[in-house]
């Protein structure tokens, strides 16, 4: 071991061929967070937004139809699984794949909402997620070319393998593009979608992949 993993020493390492999945204190805590929230998404029922007419007794209740609920719950669960995978994987290419899965699931969660504003925001976000795959997978390819390996365990235990700074920047920018949702939509657009537990999965998964990419960049 040349360097110390800032996430702590792994408790155990699961081997999928060349792709190691490692559970260090850091990745385990993120994994458990994603797991707990996925369970919430499974068992929770969507919130019902109610708009009250000011100064009167009238109100509008926004119902989430069953078909819409099903697809959004499915996307939220898929997003949870994708974040769980991204939290613990120890392989860089696998990490980028999980990140892009999180990105497309985030679009899917809000794609079912029948609201022009939300759909517009989701479309813009989808384009960003689409174009972010170029720096994301480009970074994975450049890491493979400059170090000859994709295993994070190998990269942190062998001090001779150094990833250039610009490649790390590409990786971070790619993750930003995929998980950008809370950075502009938390204020407004995508979160206007009714159905709370599913929409919050967008935000939580982005938060988690950000926390993970910090560890990845420090490790490699």
């Amino acid at each position, binding site marked *: 071991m040349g360097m110390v993993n800032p996430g702590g020493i792994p408790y155990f390492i699961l081997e999928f061929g060349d792709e190691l999945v490692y559970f260090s204190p850091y990745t385990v805590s993120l994994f458990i967070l994603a797991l707990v929230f996925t369970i919430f998404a499974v068992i929770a029922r969507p919130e019902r937004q109610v708009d009250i007419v000011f100064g009167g007794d009238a109100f509008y209740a926004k119902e989430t139809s069953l078909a819409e609920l099903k*697809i959004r719950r499915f996307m939220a669960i*898929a997003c949870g699984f994708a974040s769980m995978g991204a939290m613990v994987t120890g392989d860089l290419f696998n990490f980028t794949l*999980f990140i892009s899965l999180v990105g497309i699931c985030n679009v899917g969660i809000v794609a079912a909402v029948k609201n022009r504003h939300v759909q517009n925001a989701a479309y813009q976000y989808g384009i960003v997620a689409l174009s972010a795959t170029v720096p994301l997978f480009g970074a994975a390819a450049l890491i493979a070319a400059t170090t*000859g390996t994709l295993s994070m365990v190998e990269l942190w235990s062998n001090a001779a393998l150094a990833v250039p700074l610009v490649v790390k920047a590409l990786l971070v920018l790619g993750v930003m593009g995929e998980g950008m949702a809370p950075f502009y939509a938390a*204020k407004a657009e995508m979160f206007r979608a009714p159905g709370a537990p599913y929409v919050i999965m967008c935000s939580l998964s982005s938060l988690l992949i950000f926390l993970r990419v910090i560890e990845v960049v420090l490790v490699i």
Partner: protein
Amino acid sequence: MIIQRISRIISNYEMIMPIFAGAVTLLFVVAIFSLPLPYYEEQLYPKTYDPTSPLNPYDRGGPPFVQIDIKEQYPENSPTAGYVTSYLTPLSWYMANTTLYLGTTIVGHPGGILDEILYNTRGLDTVVETTILFIAFAIASYLYRKG
């Protein structure tokens, strides 16, 4: 004041694409200027091209059911790698014997060639890749049916 202005720009979702495109362009310019990046000679999954083989990019060489040496990161994790370097269905066997370009048909003919490294040592990758496709199809079909 400046933060207020920035947050006003960012909160407009129509602006998020140009901002991201600008950031990508900027970083790509930096990347181009820092270009001669060191190339690590000992690559993990080396590829050799044999233009005379019909399985061209996927040909790992070796007779069937005799283990050949495949370079892996952790050889102890996949001890059976190298036994089945390619698996051909009858149709792909016919195509391999008649044309030189079976290797290019992997997309249109899944299961025609089993790439040893892809499926044996990096199996989780293929699972996640197909999951991405599946999710994309699920979204597209839902939006299509919704009308």
